[in-house]
């Protein structure tokens, strides 16, 4: 079985929601709160309070190449533009729209991805505001703009969905198979890739016949296939999925394109298909509602900006005490202070966790057991990074892999002493980046003289 070295097998808890079809929902307040920036460079609102907007209309953008515009997900009136709690537990500028009853939409004209130029196709992906829907929300048009001199062999569909609890990719794979395959074909066309592979964890092997049928029906049997990888966290990490599926490694400080691979999430590819075939920007977000405190875990699709609190109790019922609210999965998701945050383009799940599912234990002294070293998904030395950071020895921390860490959390998951390894490594990374920036600024100032 294809896999990578290291990793963990946490309880999956996908059975809670993986049989539930994706169901459309709408906030009870008929109001959405859309963050102005959802991946990429910071955007500016291009609408004012009091404006009437139509579903699909662009409401925030930026001139930067690294940015993805944001669109109105409902038709209605702009009520407020203000800072509000978002899914990363930080306040950010949001555009609040009160929906009216209108069914009107303002989508882009349909476009045939295979006859337009690559430049136009990439522009369409940007105009549709598509970002990585697996969680990272990296602008997709940037990923598809292959740097000169790099050749892409494979587009990998990241359908590993290795985060526990989350089942939205699993549902999309069976409910929107054709759109997914169309999206993959478009991505392969734009990136000039030879082949496309849908990479599944073994726990979703039951989907293979369906997927292969759909590929055959679409006439892509020649260049598309399904690859099965071991069910293991973080199999869906970009570094790990590439090495598992192709045996190649992203070079340190390099890009996936350096390995001849482009990795796209299931949801992202479906959004790409819709952007061309329907002219629809990324304004609806399918995601999983789960966790031990949820009465009926399920998969939903809502307009981007839907505040989770506005789905309680009409759509989401809680029947136990909630200890943590997570946006994303339990391994890499954010804990949020309350449920009044909007669903963003990268929200793959919202989990209401009980005390029993979590670990709230205090840190105890590190016993130096080295388990974090054994499980590290990038073969780094978490305990040694953290000890070096503690001593202020950045050089050693770098040597042990500080800047190569992907924050997957396997080390902390396995730590018998509950050491907050990831948090410390993150702090170390931020400090090091600040140091670099300061050095650079100094250099520029010097040269300026």
């Amino acid at each position, binding site marked *: 079985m294809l896999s990578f070295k290291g990793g*963990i097998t*946490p309880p999956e808890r996908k059975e809670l929601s993986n049989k539930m079809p994706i169901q459309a929902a709408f906030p009870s307040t008929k109001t959405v709160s859309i963050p102005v920036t959802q991946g990429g460079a910071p955007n500016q609102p291009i609408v004012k309070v009091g404006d009437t907007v139509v579903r699909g209309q662009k409401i925030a953008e930026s001139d930067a190449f690294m940015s993805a515009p944001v669109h109105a997900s409902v038709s209605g009136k702009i009520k407020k533009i203000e800072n509000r709690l978002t899914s990363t537990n930080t306040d950010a500028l949001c555009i609040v729209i009160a929906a009216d009853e209108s069914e009107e939409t303002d989508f882009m004209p349909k476009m045939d991805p295979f006859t337009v130029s690559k430049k136009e196709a990439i522009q369409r992906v940007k105009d549709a505001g598509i970002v990585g829907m697996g969680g990272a929300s990296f602008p997709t048009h940037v990923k598809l703009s292959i740097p000169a001199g790099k050749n892409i*062999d494979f587009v990998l569909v990241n359908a590993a969905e290795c985060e*526990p609890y989350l089942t939205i990719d699993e549902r999309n794979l069976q409910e929107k198979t054709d759109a997914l395959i169309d999206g993959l074909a478009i991505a392969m066309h734009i990136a000039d890739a030879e*082949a496309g*592979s849908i990479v599944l964890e073994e726990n979703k092997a039951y989907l293979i016949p369906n997927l292969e049928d759909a590929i055959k029906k679409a006439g892509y049997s020649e260049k598309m296939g399904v690859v099965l990888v071991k069910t293991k966290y973080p199999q869906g990490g970009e*570094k790990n999925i590439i*090495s598992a599926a*192709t045996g190649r*490694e992203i*070079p*340190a*400080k390099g890009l996936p394109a*350096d*390995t*001849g691979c482009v990795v796209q999430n299931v949801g992202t590819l479906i959004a790409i298909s819709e952007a061309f075939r329907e002219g629809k920007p990324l304004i609806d977000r399918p995601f999983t509602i789960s966790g031990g*405190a949820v009465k009926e875990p399920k998969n939903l699709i809502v307009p981007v900006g839907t505040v989770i*609190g506005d789905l*309680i*109790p009409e759509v989401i019922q*809680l029947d136990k005490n*909630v*200890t*943590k*609210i*997570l946006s994303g999965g339990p*391994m*890499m998701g*954010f*804990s949020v*202070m*309350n*449920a009044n945050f909007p669903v963003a383009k990268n929200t793959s799940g919202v989990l209401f966790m009980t005390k029993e599912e*979590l670990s709230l234990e205090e840190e*105890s*002294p590190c*016993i*130096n057991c*080295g*388990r974090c*070293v054994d499980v590290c*998904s*990038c*073969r780094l*030395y978490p*305990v*040694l990074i953290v000890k070096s950071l503690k001593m202020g020895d950045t050089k050693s921390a770098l*040597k*042990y*892999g500080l800047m*190569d860490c992907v924050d997957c*959390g396997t080390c902390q*998951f396995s730590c*018998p*002493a*509950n050491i*907050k390894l*990831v*948090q410390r490594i*993150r702090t170390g990374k931020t400090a090091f980046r600040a140091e670099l920036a300061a050095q650079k600024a100094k250099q520029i100032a010097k040269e300026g003289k």
Partner: protein
Amino acid sequence: MAPSDINEIYISSSPHYKSKSSTQKTMLTVIISMLPIVIASIVIFGFAALEVVLTSVISCVVFEAAFQKLTKKTIRINDLSAVVTGLMLACVLPAGAPVWETILGSLVAIVVAKEFFGGLGSNVFNPALIGRAFMFVSFPVAMGSAWLQPGTDVVSGATVLSQLKAGTSVVATKSTYLQFLLGNRAGCLGETSIALILLAFIVLTALKIIDWRAPVAMVLTVAIGTIIAGGDVILALLSGGLLFGAVFMVTDYATTPVTKKGRLIFGFGAGLITFLIRQFGSYPEGVMFSILIMNAVAPFLNNLMSRKYGYEKDNKTPRMVQKSSKKDTK
């Protein structure tokens, strides 16, 4: 209002999920793996062994609690690490070691070797071995020359290794090997039952509590050295504290490297020094000093890393992909 709004909501950095492992469980596993060895020693040496075990374990726990109380730290005897140290110390002492000497040894092990260095996980040297080394040099009579023969109360002269050292010829027969394997010989408590030590090694390795690298490297090094020197390999492996040290001491978390290559070199170094002391030194047994010497080197050995993701073997150059033209993913 949703129920979530009236509850106490926790905020933290990811990950929010945690395996069921804990320091206490890890220590408990080690204790359980040592129990057969301890029980066997009590069967072999009788009350004298039980006395050493109880004295050592109780005083280690008491000293740890007392020190933590005195220095106003959180009392952490629940993590069971002091029990492990106590058992380890008992296992490297001869049956019949005087109670007051054992108490002093425990004091040095817990307070000097462990707590003075910052407590659990921060100690540089193996506490049990420091305790033993202290007793070894302070009370040479009780520790080095008077060994209790199994099943008797008679204090006899020497162990096989000290006989070898003194030049007395030891002719080993198959039954000698068997007696050694079963533990029916003079020696320290835990060192004698070789079969049970091997069992513990298998269990602890299977449970991923310990890594096989350092023990195997150490034992192999001693074996190869003995072959080159023309000694009795089986006797060299079965005698003294070699196997106990290899399984329980060179796998001690705090005082050995965490990198895999570092562990191999650690085991190799400990094996080499053991062999050299046995062969050329004035002490009959080298395991204790070899491990203590390597403990000092351990932090440096963490520099020996395997290849990190995305790097070449030097761990500095980014690994560029050599694209074999048109490779298929399947």
